[in-house]
């Protein structure tokens, strides 16, 4: 068994630490919500923006 952790395990460890910790998850959920709104609004504007034109 290799003693050094692979990069995949490091990534999984990092993700679980960010999700399970309460404080970090509060910030991460806000970050995901804001980034999702920003990206989705850009996609909507570029593809369906003409629908809002007068």
């Amino acid at each position, binding site marked *: 068994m290799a003693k050094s952790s692979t990069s995949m395990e490091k990534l999984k460890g990092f993700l679980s630490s960010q999700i399970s910790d309460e404080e970090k998850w509060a*910030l991460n959920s*806000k*970050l995901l*919500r*804001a*980034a999702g*709104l*920003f990206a989705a*609004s*850009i996609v909507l*504007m*570029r593809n369906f*923006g*003409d629908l*809002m*034109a*007068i």
Partner: protein
Amino acid sequence: MGSSVSHAAAPPPPLPSPSPPPSSVGLAAALPPKQDEKAEPEKVDWLNLPCPIPFEEIQREALMSLKPELFEGLRFDFTKGLNQRFSLSHSVFMGSMEVPSQSSDTLKVPTAHYEFGANFLDPKLMLVGRVLTDGRLNARVKCDLTDNLTMKINAQLTNEPHFSQGMFNFDYKGTDFRSQLQIGNNAFYGGNYIQSISPHLSLGTEIFWLGHQRKSGIGFAARYNTDNMVATGQVASTGIVALSYVQKVSEKVSLASDFMYNHLTQDVTSSFGYDYILRQCRLRGKIDSNGVFAAFLEERLNMGVNFILSAEVDHRKKDYKFGFGMTVGE
């Protein structure tokens, strides 16, 4: 293998190719050959790039659409022009102002004030002064020293000690760049520089030094714009990342979106809004990633008379702000 061609239908005899119309040979030779405009893109003159937007206005389209002056209460503004260059203004505000508080509850303080202002507007010199009943004075000076060099002075003076601020700005406009030097009280020194890289892209950087607190910072900004859209990004060493995107859907309608992340306060906000500029009114609305809805309407009732409605609703914090007002004069 059988031939799929039916022998029953004989191929029609080839039609005689029409002879070219007899045009005057001289005209055909004189006119230049017709160019296919779409095939060749416009050639970029790299030595003649346009002058970029000033660094502090890099996000101006997004700010104009997404950050109207929302207020709660009554607002009345009256501007009277005495002559072509000089005008006086009177403003009354009665309502609640938000005070920043440490807890998540919003703290509102009922406020009422009257503001008297005087404006002098000349092509080369602009002087604006405002004085309020709570003892504050705001003054702004903008002076074109030469064609390319502009000096701006901002000052806010208050009764409370150590709360007054003043700032000198010197702006230099080059052919395809702009630079600015800032000197403020509390030993504040700053500068920024923005350069056009291509007809659509400009990159800028800023640096500042706060003498009294021994703090310094550096930031970078980029702006990409075409006829229909503007995309900007700003990063600062103070831990701020700000992105914005504005799409001009038509002459009257713009859609805008922005994203702001502050590493120090661990705060992240994104908003998406619309801006309808019509003949009789201007309507702006937006929704936030914190669940805040806001709208701002300016309706032109008559020549120089505008009716204003402002609304901001935060269901989560149970904070409802509604305001109405009127603006008379330009």
